[in-house]
Structures are given as structure tokens and as C-alpha cells.
């Protein structure tokens, strides 16, 4: 039996939802849920959680590409079958966690992982760089301004030592979104790598009639840059749109609504770097990431400019910040003018907000620091 295209609705099952999570808890988790006392990271990538019962759950965290094959997943299952009673889990940052109920089982697990080449790097805990949360990029998306998996691989190769150690002032969360839609929600990351367009959309008059609802395309523009217009296609006058280029800030929302308005471009597209965001409420409120480098070119396969920019910020932060300080807390303590000076990043007009609520970011005090920006 199986799907019968002649009778698609016969015996159809819908709205089942996901399986109940309790079916997948390892025994030590099922037994001690809600009764954990404390945890400790005993070495990079290895955590122990202690329960009221005295039980211990030892977790080994491994990084890797979020883009993974079934072959890779079968191998993850092989490891979990050999060491973890057939259970494993994934974290919110695309790491994989193997759990065992006895410290004695940790080293054999680590040895097994290490024997499989570089597929399963152990780390991503504590005051280091954990896995990069990211989007699809050129491997699968229709609106990207840059690739995702390729940039992430290049950046993580360079920051690898920070993944397998815990030597930074605090955790550094890096995220990549390949366009302003931000499926990767990079807007609250210590370091955000963001794909940006820089050219207004082109109008494909020959297609627009068939694929777009013009009022929706016009309404989609937050700055009113999309206007009704007329054009002649094969001698016939049609209704279409035009772009006021001076108003366009290349968000791509019109292209999302109207496939006849493509804006991607090999030279126009690239990467912006934003820093200083955080999600946690610890010590200070959650913060948005702030734009410090408006544009770096797309330079596949290894994006050296982006890799260098991210590494530079991590290294200056590592040297200068105090213990527990996240990147944004550090930048606010020293002042953003000092951030630009210490990181040797030129401050440009592009970092001065002119969008909505921009005034909130203008400086309205006499308090400032003298840096090399004041000539």
C-alpha cells in the first residue's frame, strides 16, 4: 500500500502534529526531568548535569554544517546507537548533543567521534564561539544577496580555535542571514553577517502582467518608491510599475511580492557586518545588532574580506573586554566611538540611521570620547 494518485483522499491522515517528545527522551532525561540541580562544563564541549536523585547526565556537544545529508545523519545515529542507548538531540544553534548517564562513558564517546575525521568537532560551549545560525543562501533560496553555507564554512574554519576552547570574555553568538528577510534573525547577535543588495529592482514589463498584483507590489514598498506606470510590450500598452531609485533602500520586499522585480546582482550584492546584539536578559536588556561595516563584496569561495572582518572584531573584543561582557556590553561601556577606533573600522555615513525611529540613535549629550575620528 501507499499513496494512490487515483484516490488521493482515501484513507488520508492529517493534523497529526509531531510525535510526543517523551518518546525520545533518553532514560536519564526521562527519569530526572524537572529535578536537575546544577550543571558544569567540565571541558570544552562536555557538560554534566546533576539531578536531585544523584544521577548525572553527561552531554557531548558537536558542531557541524546545518546543511547535512541523510548519510551524515545515519552516522550520527551510529554514534548514538553505540554509546547513547539510541538517543540524541539537536540544539537551537544546530549543534548535535550525545548524552550518556555515566562519566566513564564519555571518553569512549569522544574517542569514537575523534576517529571519524573532522566531521564531529567537540565544542561550542561556554565562553567561546558556538555554531553559526544561518539561512539557505545560494543552495536553495530565491532572494539571497550572498551564500550562507559557504560563508559560514569559511568563517568557522578561521574561528575554529574559539569553537574548541573557552577563552573569550563571554559567549559570542554569530549569525548569518543571506538577505534582509533575515530568516536567520541575525538582528540580535553578537556578530551578524547579513547579505545586502545595493541596486534597485529591475522591472520585467513582459512578465509583470501575468505574475503580479500591482497594488500589492506598490503597497509593499515601505518608502513609497514603487509607483504605478505604463509601458509598451509588443506594441500594446500595459499597466506596470516604476521605481524611484532615490527612495529605494534595496530591502527586496517588492520582489517578494512580485517576481517581475528582480534585484540580485553580482556586483551590487554583498555583505554587511552588524555587531553588539544579544538575546539574553542577563545583566542588560536584549540588544539589536548595529551596522558597523556597510558593505563587503561577495568573494566566493572563501569570502576573505568577511572572514577577516569577523575575526578582527572577535580578536579585539577578546583582548579588550572584561570577563562576562558580551560584545554589545563591551562596545557600550567603552563607547561606540572607541569600538570603531579599537577595531580600526572606518566610520561612514552609512552607520548613521535615517530610517524609522532613527532619532533614538542620535547622540544628544555632551558626553563623548576623543578618538582618531576627531581630526
Amino acid at each position, binding site marked *: 500500500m*501507499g*499513496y494512490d494518485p487515483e484516490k488521493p483522499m482515501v484513507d*488520508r491522515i*492529517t493534523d*497529526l502534529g*509531531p*510525535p510526543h517528545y517523551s518518546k*525520545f*527522551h533518553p532514560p536519564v*532525561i526521562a527519569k530526572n*526531568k524537572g529535578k*536537575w540541580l*546544577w*550543571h558544569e562544563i567540565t*571541558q570544552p564541549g562536555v557538560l554534566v*548535569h546533576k539531578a536531585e536523585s544523584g544521577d548525572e547526565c553527561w*552531554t557531548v556537544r558537536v*558542531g557541524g*554544517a546545518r546543511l*547535512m545529508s*541523510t548519510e551524515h545523519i545515519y552516522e550520527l*545515529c551510529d554514534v*548514538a546507537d553505540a554509546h547513547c542507548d539510541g538517543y*540524541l538531540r*539537536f540544539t*537551537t544553534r544546530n549543534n548535535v548533543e550525545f548524552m550518556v548517564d555515566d562519566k566513564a562513558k564519555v571518553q569512549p564517546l569522544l574517542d569514537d567521534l575523534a576517529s571519524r575525521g*573532522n566531521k564531529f*568537532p567537540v565544542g561550542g560551549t561556554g*565562553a567561546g564561539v558556538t555554531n553559526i*545560525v544561518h539561512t539557505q543562501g*545560494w*543552495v*536553495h*533560496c*530565491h532572494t539571497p544577496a550572498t*551564500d550562507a*553555507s*559557504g560563508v559560514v*564554512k569559511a568563517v568557522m*574554519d578561521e574561528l575554529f580555535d574559539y569553537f574548541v576552547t*573557552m*577563552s*573569550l570574555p563571554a559567549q559570542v553568538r554569530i549569525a548569518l*542571514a543571506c538577505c534582509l528577510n*533575515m*530568516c536567520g*534573525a541575525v*538582528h*540580535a547577535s553578537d556578530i551578524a553577517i547579513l547579505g545586502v543588495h545595493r541596486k534597485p529592482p529591475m522591472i520585467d514589463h513582459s512578465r509583470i502582467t501575468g505574475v503580479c498584483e500591482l497594488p500589492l507590489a506598490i503597497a509593499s514598498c515601505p518608502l513609497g518608491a514603487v509607483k504605478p506606470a505604463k509601458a509598451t510590450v509588443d506594441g500594446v500598452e500595459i499597466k506596470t510599475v516604476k521605481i524611484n531609485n532615490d527612495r529605494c533602500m534595496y*530591502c527586496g520586499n517588492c520582489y517578494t511580492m512580485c*517576481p517581475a522585480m*528582480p534585484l*540580485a546582482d553580482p556586483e551590487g550584492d554583498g555583505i554587511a557586518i552588524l555587531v553588539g546584539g544579544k*538575546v539574553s*536578559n542577563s545583566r542588560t536588556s536584549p540588544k539589536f545588532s548595529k551596522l558597523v561595516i556597510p558593505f563587503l563584496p561577495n568573494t*566566493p569561495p*572563501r569570502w576573505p574580506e568577511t572572514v577577516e572582518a569577523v575575526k578582527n572584531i572577535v580578536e579585539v573584543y577578546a583582548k579588550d573586554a572584561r*570577563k*562576562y561582557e558580551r560584545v554589545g556590553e563591551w562596545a557600550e561601556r567603552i563607547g561606540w566611538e572607541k569600538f570603531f577606533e579599537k577595531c580600526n573600522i572606518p566610520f561612514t555615513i552609512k552607520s548613521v540611521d535615517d530610517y*524609522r525611529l532613527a532619532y533614538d540613535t542620535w547622540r544628544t549629550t555632551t558626553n563623548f570620547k576623543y578618538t582618531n575620528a576627531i581630526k
Partner: protein
Amino acid sequence: MAKHDTPLLDELEKGPWPSFVTDIKRQAEKNPDCWDILGILELSFRDKITHWKHGGIVGVFGYGGGIVGRYADVPKEYPGVEHFHTVRVNQPASKYYSTENLRHLMELWDKHGSGMTNMHGSTGDIILLGCRTEALEPFFWDLTHELGQDLGGSGSNLRTPANCLGESRCEWSCYDTEELCHHLTMHYQDEIHRPAFPYKFKFKFSGCANDCVAAIARSDFAVIGTWKDDIRIDQAAVKEYVAGNIPANGGAHSGRDWGSFSIKKEVIDLCPTNCMWMEGDELKIDDTECTRCMHCINVMPRALRPGAQGGASILIGAKAPILDGAQFATLIFPFIEISAENEFENVIEIIENVWDWWMEVGKNRERVGETMQRVGLPTFIKVMGIDPIPQHVKEPRSNPYVFWEEEEVEGGFDRSVEEFRKRHAA
């Protein structure tokens, strides 16, 4: 045997971080269509632009979400990825798996699709990456009949809810995140599968203010654990930390010599409300001043624990920048109890209040946070039927442009200018 030359992608097989290129090549040995994934990606690396067409409406019967259509713009050269649709499968809460379940799901994906995945997508789903249109219904049949599993959300619907692992393996969780996530996911299957909203709507559930699932930044409806009573202190463990016998911050800083632990520098001085002090060798906390930010608990997990009276704050309206700029969620309910015993009816009531209003007044493609911005927080507070409290704002407004209801003003708005002129010549 490789079908295309990929000199640029081959550069990404070097270096210490695991290579997705090496992984796709391994998969291609089993499923030759995957050579065309590498081929089309290599082309993008050369051209510095995507080769996927815009959109394509595909799905399974009866659902308006869960599948994202995708077609190559160079299908002749790369026929293996001519259709390359995404299937979103609703992940189990907390993302634990048995290998039995995971293997079975992957076998289905090998049978029907490319065998490439994302574990997981940004919203939380298992993302199965790349299959043909004619494979969608057979895959869905097998998914539901063999595994008893289901698709997640896409489009203008309730997106697949997600949670931090909560009480399952974390001592800080103030409520059972995975149970609430699972319960609401089951309760709202119709809203997940059949788009009826102005735009997407996301639930995320974090067990404490560390917010490991980024609820405050990424969800329209964020449930973030907190507590009502006092931080639980084990003074004996405090002494152990002070003596340097337990590594601070759960050992998270062990890779560098930061000097010996100072409870004053690392805990008391970093408390944002200055509500902690030492009396002799005892740590004291004025819990009435505490905002439960988690810093002290993070630093001394064996000495400090969240209070025993757990619950959650509800914050509403977070989103990424498109379109009006990024927003964090706004605190609307400072504390509610979260209980499976009443089937979370208090949470459900709040959700449906928000939806009833947003479905009425929300514009096409307007996230609820943008609707809140448009009508203003005072209006939203009234819609929610709650009293305004100082906790709703960072500070009171600094402008005097207050709206008054006519009935709030003595005598109302209707006045006679003739009467006025009798006393006040123009």
C-alpha cells in the same frame, strides 16, 4: 563519479570545520541528483547570484503550508534539481530523537527526495531539502501512515512552535517548556496547516530569561520563564565558590586565566539592580529589588537557583527588520502561572485574544508587532483587556499628546461657541 567540475566548492573541503561540500559529495554517491546540487551551487559561486526561481505554488491536498516550492532557472544543465521543493516536517519538542525514528524519517527522505536536509530550520522544523512535485503526496502519505508524523507551517499561518529544552535537562527552567510547546502545537494544528492570518505568527517558549530559543527577538508570542518568590540560596555552596573550590559560571571561562574568583567583582558588582551584598560569608539578596536577569544564577549555578514558584512572562510582537525595522517583544503579562493541569487555558485565552483582534485589524503581511506599533501600545493594552501598569513601559511618555475619551472629560466635547463668545469677545 563527479558529474560537474566544482573547483570553487572544492576549496570548501579544506579547513578544520566540517565541510558541507564533502558531505554532499558523499550523498551524491548514493543519489546522483545531488551532483546537480553541487553543479548549480558552483554556478552561483561563479556568477555570484542565485539560480533559483521565484516561488512556485505546490503543496499537499488540504494544507496551505508545510511545502515551499522551488525551481532551478537552469533546469536543462542541472535536471536533478529542476524541482527542488522544501518539505518542513514538524520537529518533536526540544529536538530529542530516537535513532529509530530519525533513521526511519531519513529512509523516507532517501526514497522520495534528495537526501539533503537542514537540521534544523531557523523556526525549528526538520527541513527536507529538494524533491520533485510528484514526490510530495507519496512522501506525505508515508510520513503520516508509517511514522505518524506531520508537516510544519509556512506562509501566513501559525509557524511551527519551538522551545528550549526546559526542565528536561536544565535546572533553570521555570515551567515545562516542552509540554506547553507540544500541547499548543497539537491544539492549533488547523492554524499551522491552513493559512488564515494576515501574516506569519510564531510561538517560542524559553524556560528562563537567558532565552536560549530567542523568543524575545524572534517570536510574535514569547513565553519566557520567571519566578515570583525568592532566589534559592545554598550558603554552603556560596562559601565553596568564594573559596575557589567550584568553577564559576559552570566552568564556562576555564580556557583563560582570569585570576581567582571574586564574588564582589563577578556577581555583586554586575547585578543590574545592586540588590546583593555579603554579610560575613553569607550572600544576601533583596529579592524585592531583583529583576530575575539570571546573571548571578548563571555564575553560581550550584549556590543559586530560581525561586520555586515558577511561571512565565508573556511578551508580544518580536520580528526581524522587514518591514518597519526589527522589534523585540513587548512585556504584556509580567507573570502568569503555567500549568498542564488546566490545559494551559490561561495561555490559550491570551493567544486567542491577540488573534481575534489581529485577524480583524491586521493588514496584509503585517506582523502583530507592526500592528501594535501602528495602533499604539495604549490601544493594544485596551484590546487585551488588562490594566496598564508601569511594567509595560521602560519609562513614561515624554510628550503631552494624550488622547482623552469624551466621557473622561467633565461636560464632554460639545460646547457652544455662542455661549463662549458672550463672555469672551473675539
